[in-house]
């Protein structure tokens, strides 16, 4: 217990409070109310950054819901070894989270070396790398990278949730005349609802924090991608390039609130987490 408490306070609670403090004060430490929030909101990059992040998050969420649930359902009811193999294959890219994944996808998006160059050509109309990462494609590309690294983990989670459904229940449904599709829609899906909700809220909160992917792609983009593409990047630039810590804190607080609301929602409403016996 003892060594944990200071960590919790110093790196869990204190940063949030300090960021709040910065967000409501000016350089001299004077109270400025919502001035920093208004100021950053009116920054010409603010809205586009949040719009980018929002589009990205929606695309990602959509892909997660449809494909994760679909694949988990498809896997459930397969022979054990087949399903285990697929789960492992899906899960593998999870080892390449962070910058490694982005690098891999830079290659995948470069038509000159990509094994999927025909897809790049036909779907994105891209024959050179710069066309692949055209601004309009970015939210989809980032969503795909995030899906590629993270979906496997969620599939395992959903599959686990499906496995808690008693076998009897499924057999009873079959005797009652339900086919596999009816069973999936009427029986399995409702029982997965909690987990889906959890995935959506958590992913929404995570999605809005996007930083690594645009930051790395920006480096390799011949200047096509602005360095303030996402909200977190904007906050970072405010802090680092302009030393505007109060403005950075204001955006950080915006983002933290999104995360916090999501977290509180999950903890108090989902019933997935124990807080007492």
């Amino acid at each position: 217990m003892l060594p944990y408490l200071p960590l919790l306070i110093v790196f869990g609670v204190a940063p949030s409070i300090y960021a709040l403090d910065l967000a409501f004060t000016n350089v001299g430490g004077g109270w400025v109310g919502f001035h920093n929030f208004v100021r950053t909101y009116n920054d010409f990059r603010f809205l586009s950054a949040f719009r980018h992040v929002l589009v990205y998050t929606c695309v990602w969420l959509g892909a997660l819901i449809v494909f994760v649930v679909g694949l988990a359902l498809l896997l459930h009811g397969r022979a054990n070894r087949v399903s285990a193999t697929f789960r492992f294959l899906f899960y593998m890219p999870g080892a390449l989270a962070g910058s490694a994944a982005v690098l891999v996808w830079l290659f995948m998006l470069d038509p000159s070396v990509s094994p999927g160059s025909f897809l790049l050509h036909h779907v994105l109309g891209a024959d050179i790398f710069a066309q692949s990462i055209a601004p309009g494609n970015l939210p989809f590309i980032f969503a795909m990278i995030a899906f590629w690294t993270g979906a496997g983990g969620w599939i395992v989670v959903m599959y686990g949730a499906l496995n808690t459904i008693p076998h009897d229940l499924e057999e009873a449904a079959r005797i009652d005349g339900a086919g596999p599709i009816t069973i999936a829609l009427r029986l399995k899906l409702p029982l997965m609802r909690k987990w889906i909700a959890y995935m959506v809220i958590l992913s929404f909160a995570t999605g809005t924090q996007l930083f690594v992917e645009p930051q790395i792609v920006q480096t390799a983009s011949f200047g096509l991608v602005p360095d303030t593409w996402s909200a977190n990047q904007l906050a970072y630039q405010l802090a680092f390039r302009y030393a505007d810590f109060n403005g950075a804190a204001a955006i950080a607080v915006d983002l933290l609130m999104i995360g916090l609301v999501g977290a509180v929602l999950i903890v108090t409403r989902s019933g997935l987490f124990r807080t007492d016996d």
Partner: protein
Amino acid sequence: MRLRVVGLGVRLTVLAMFAVFFIAPVVWLVLAPTKSDKALITSSPFSFGDFHHVALAWKHLDAFSSHIFRRWIGNTLFYAVSATAITLVAGVPAGYGLAIGRFPGRKLVLSLTLVVMIVPGAALVLPIFLELNAVHLIGSSLSVILPFAFFPFGVYLAYLYYATALPPSLLDAARVDGCGELQTFLRVALPLAKPIVALVFFFSFVADWNNFFLPYVVLADSNQYPITVGLWDLLSSTPSFNPAVGGGGQSVKIFKPELALATLIAVVPVAIVFLFSQRALVRGLVGGAVKE
């Protein structure tokens, strides 16, 4: 009957298509360093070159900025291992205490832990940066290790294990058998939690190894970079994606095969931990000890 065969075919095809999506980039990455920069473009994406090119790519990579790649790997290991060690030493007893202890503030600590656990890590990076900046810790390795070491998910995992899977009678038995509270934890609760320790180790190590944002923000000297940030540094030095690099990149000799090799090396430890930990998780240690 025919309908069922068709259904099975459709299911397997869909699964196989996704398997290709998930695994093809990995296969490509493994094969890429075996080819020259030119062969990457001309030969088939999934062809195997030869090991000579791997050695060559490593030579170029290692030579980059006077062996800095080795430093990055070393830094990452150092950050991830020491942070994970602190996580385990601090987190597992904390989870135990939260699960079986009865003390004021327990519920508050637990709720805070849960909330911080679910708040995305990236949301706290800038606040942590601002805080560390205020106390002038920016640029030290502690500014990476200590935030890494705070891993509420590990605490929650330990808490959940001790609150649900550990039969209270085992702790009672230990006390009756003569253990004090510390001995009860060390001799009974801790050995039983081996799967959880492995799990916490796994998640913490992987999270620390892969983290980009925090070290990117709090470290300034490229000698201190972990490999994730190092990859970014490499990327910004390669003419393959960055024509602005002077001299056509001939001086640094970092091209696509080198970059692919660097990426591969960067993920190998995580992949190993991935495979290694999976086996530890399967062993249900408590099974059979206490009849329900």
